[in-house]
């Protein structure tokens, strides 16, 4: 299915990423080209083939459910653009 400009705007909204109007036009062509190109995968019959979950056969390790790190609030906040009173801050979300 071909992507149009409205769809580009919708994908950008899903990705929470502002894409200016003039760039949307270019993206319509680029995304359609890329998706048209990956479309060749549909030539392959993959019925009964398991989707890969891990390239190397490893069983995920278990560890005791114990605190191993923490108590470093200031370090966690050190890179925040606008920390406030020991918290991250965001624009007001509740009126």
């Amino acid at each position: 299915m071909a992507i149009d400009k409205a769809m580009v705007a919708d994908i950008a909204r899903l990705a929470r990423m502002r894409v200016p109007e003039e760039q949307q036009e270019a993206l319509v062509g680029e995304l359609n080209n890329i998706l048209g190109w990956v479309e060749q995968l549909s030539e392959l019959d993959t019925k009964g083939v398991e989707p890969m979950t891990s390239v190397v056969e490893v069983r995920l390790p278990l560890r005791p459910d114990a605190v191993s790190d923490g108590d470093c609030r200031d370090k966690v906040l050190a890179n925040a653009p606008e920390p406030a009173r020991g918290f991250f801050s965001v624009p007001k979300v509740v009126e």
Partner: protein
Amino acid sequence: MTRLNELTIADARDGLAKGDFTARELTGACIAAVEAARPLNAFITETPDRALDMAKASDARRAKGEVGILEGIPVAIKDLFCTQGVLTTAASHILDGFVPPYESSVTAKMWREGAILLGKTNLDEFAMGSSNTTSYYGHVENPWRRRGDNRPLVPGGSSGGSAATVAARVAPGATGTDTGGSIRQPASFAGLVGMKPTYGRCSRWGIVAFASSLDQAGPLTRTVRDGAIMLRAMAGHDPKDSTSVDRPVPNYEAALTGDVRGLKIGIPKEYRVENMPEEIESLWRQGIAWLKAAGATTVDISLPHTKYALPAYYIVAPAEASSNLARYDGVRYGLRVPGGSLTEMYEATRGEGFGTEVKRRVMIGTYVLSAGYYDAYYNKARRVRTLILRDFTQAFEKVDAILTPTAPSAAFAIGEKMDDPIAMYLNDVFTVPANLSGLPGISVPAALTGDGLPLGLQVIGRAFDEETMLRVAGVLEEAAGFDAEPAFVAGR
């Protein structure tokens, strides 16, 4: 006498051990080389003060008899590895001012083994690219030039700054990361050895994530031996990365016996792609002849799903990227662009903070993961991945390693291939299959094109059999006798 910054890791190690020079002297020479090489734009951040402190500490350790694998060796680190107290950018505007309060596991291990940080190298933004032209911090120039042509060339990507640094003799080694060829392709473009180890061999903890099921750290060096030395200092189990594998790290250097007699080397017919330059085709034939002359046998093999690797990659990698890059929201680190509401702040921050290629991939990834398309695209690509791995598993029942070209071209000029994303993506046609299947791959510089640019050959090994792969690579290196130097060498 060779300038200290032009030594290989192995030679620097010997010189330090013999007391011919100190880590401070070696580091001083490399710091001067970093400055001399500034026109290449290979570094985003230089760390000369830290380097000298680390060198002093290394000399003190050596005096006490404590000598790590990389003791006293200056290295450059791709700016995708978090380094405690040192700006880490992923070459993106969105990580403006990010100074990690922690160290990546791979670099922490290298410092424990005595390595010295010269600085953080430039790359394609979030490692997305094959030319190092998508960086927020500007293009990197390849130290190589075509004969009789002074146009600047790309160093390849995404580990382009690391490749330019090692090729220009600024540092004897640098780290890279390889998601679809980002170590091996720049190695080929810059006349270097570049190795992507098996997925799980090096910890990914503290490396800015691009596509988590594909990303793997590895070394860029001038020789196979140096690659073996560096990998030993980078590899190993890490409880902080559940995909890092708990297996002993061998002494990779010991694998370089120079003896490939009796080994079976697979030659996959599907890698003979349309429009491949004759020079690359003939280099590949030359590689086959070199290995035969050294006593290996070559076996024609088929990897039938090869042509589907690149399209599958361009579903899987953007999908994982769109998910990984969701964290850049202007709240916890980096850039924040104000907006009237929370959503507007997110949209403004991400709209301004991400460059064109990153946006394109986040868009693709968001689309293929969205409701209604997930199965048709993402699950389909994961099924194709299973088939690609199966091709390799069957091939490795018959052969010990696989020989292919590394890239379908030599370095191209900055500005070429920029208009068509797919033409750029095709750079990775020979390297992507090893990422999709988790296998180790190495590029070895093997020849020059007619106009004087390096070309690499790739060896792909069995999972966790970097040793056989390195052994084959070492024999190719010996036979090729590649000793050409780039047009630009720091300080000459």
